[in-house]
């Protein structure tokens, strides 16, 4: 892949952003992501009310000019809570993907580079770990660590490690057999140097693609755990937790459920749109396809 990338004409790299934004879906996705990041950063200035102040309005009051998204059971402004919720979604998603990426990637490289028995045993264990349906593994980890926002993020992150390890291992195996690694070894480069200077730069595009493609489902996954009551706990204004709280009285106040869910959906959709576009640009096989 490195040879191909090096041979490619320079303009490709120069116009990366414009290429990324070359599809309407990706533009829309970028706009939403930037908006969500903005909401997260400036929540105290943008939210009309305190996210946790009760009795701001009548309990379960419907949407109005004062309370755009209505009020929840404790008389809290849903609009303000949805804005503060932006602080959790992407941050949680990025944290979990970072955990999966760093540990899974490291494991994959070490196993493949180690080769021989290390690789055989490592691959066997990774395959076995992939036999846990991700949600079951995540719930098992939450059961051990205890319920909570941080633990849910850890659980989702850890449950992604085998998947990242497998992909990294496969990619590293093809690289290790290549001439430039052999050449580096022949010139007396140490293991650390080969891994950092020769393998990692070549793995980066693949790792970036899987990480981006995974981000959307990571955001969704952590919100799901919160919805199940295993992640963020009330009164945290996390979107999944808000949906869980709104579940009991959705009949009388559907707005308590519609807006946090809509925010979550738009965020995940946008991340997926941008991720798809990014993988199309970075992965040559995808590029030929559409």
């Amino acid at each position, binding site marked *: 892949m490195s040879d191909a990338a090096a041979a490619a004409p320079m303009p490709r790299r120069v116009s990366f952003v414009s290429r990324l934004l070359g599809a309407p879906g990706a533009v829309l996705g970028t706009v939403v992501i930037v908006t969500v990041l903005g909401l997260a950063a400036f929540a105290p200035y943008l939210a009309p009310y305190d996210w946790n102040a009760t009795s701001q309005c009548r309990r379960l009051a419907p949407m109005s000019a004062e309370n755009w998204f209505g009020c929840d059971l404790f008389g809290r402004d849903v609009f303000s809570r949805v804005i503060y919720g932006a602080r959790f979604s992407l941050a949680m998603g990025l944290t979990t993907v970072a955990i999966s990426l760093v540990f899974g990637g490291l494991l994959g490289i070490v196993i493949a580079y180690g080769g021989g028995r290390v690789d055989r045993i490592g691959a066997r264990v990774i395959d076995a770990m992939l036999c846990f*349906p991700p949600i079951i593994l995540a*719930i*098992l980890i939450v059961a051990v660590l*205890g319920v909570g926002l941080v633990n849910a993020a850890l659980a989702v992150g850890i449950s992604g490690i085998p998947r990242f390890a497998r992909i990294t291992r496969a990619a590293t195996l093809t690289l290790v057999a290549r001439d430039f690694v052999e050449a580096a070894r022949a010139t007396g480069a140490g293991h650390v140097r080969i891994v950092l200077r020769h393998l990692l730069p070549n793995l980066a595009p693949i790792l970036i693609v899987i990480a981006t493609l995974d981000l959307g489902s990571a955001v969704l996954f952590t919100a799901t755990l919160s*919805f199940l009551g295993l992640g963020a706990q009330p009164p945290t204004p996390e979107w999944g937790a808000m949906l869980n709280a709104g579940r009991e009285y959705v009949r009388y106040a559907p707005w308590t459920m519609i807006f946090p869910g809509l925010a979550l*959906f738009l965020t995940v959709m946008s991340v997926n749109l941008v991720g798809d576009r990014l993988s199309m640009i970075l992965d040559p096989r995808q590029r030929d396809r559409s």
Partner: protein
Amino acid sequence: MSARAILGRLLSVIPTLLIVWTVVFGAMRLVPGDPVMLMLQGTPISESAMEAARAKLGVDRPIIVQYVSFIANAAVGDFGESFRSRQPVTRLIAAEFPKTLELALGGFVVGLVLGLTLGVIAGVRPNGWVDTLCMTAALVGLSLPSFWIGMIMIQVFATQLGWVPVLGSGWDALILPSITVGLFLAGGLARLTRNSIIDVMGQDYIRTARAKGLSTVRVVAKHAMRNAMIPPLTLLGIQFALLIGGAVVTETVFARPGIGKLLVQAVLEKDFPVVQGIVVMTTAVYVLINVLIDIAYGIIDPRVQE
């Protein structure tokens, strides 16, 4: 696939499950606190009763003995008693399992029909507006929080329109939950099917079929579909993981009894034998299904050997 190869595949389940269950055993030992205290939840108890409880749980034995007996019990499906209801975990799971199976099958059918249809329609004429529309729909399916769409459907179709009951054990109470589970499945399946159809449509035998003057519908239905279905169908085993995930969430949304609801409840109540039992059982089912699909695939497609 020879009988020998099939036997080999079946036997490969054993080391895999051994690793998986070792992880479960290790995880359960990492739970902070004394298991007896967790079981009693702070109820005061005499020293002798404590010893008796310890012996009953088997936690007074050396760790290696505990490990061997855990694996042996897991293999025969014995997970002890629930800390809360004091019923055998196996009985609890057996009571809920048919409900979850029903939901998973319903979701599977919805996902399969919707996913394959979208994928084929999109893949036959790639990059047109129909393709864009179908793939956008698939992406929406992948991005929708299933608990959210489930709640909206309950509101609209059950509460407002009254078309289907919210609760109940009849088949009509299964419609909305099945759609909820199926939507997510459909998104991924549609994308796979589309790519597979595009690959197949470029093959020589499709050109030959077209050259013979067959209509597009006939070419797709008789020649392309059969070959294009192989990659998406091999991934059905992996889809089972999504089905389990979908079932866990959907059961909570629809307040349906089932394995998922039991599991979430058990985690919240720190009922570790139940958590352990469900994890061991789902991984066993998952591994077995994948091996069976693997074998079936080998029998159907002679190009795949060993």
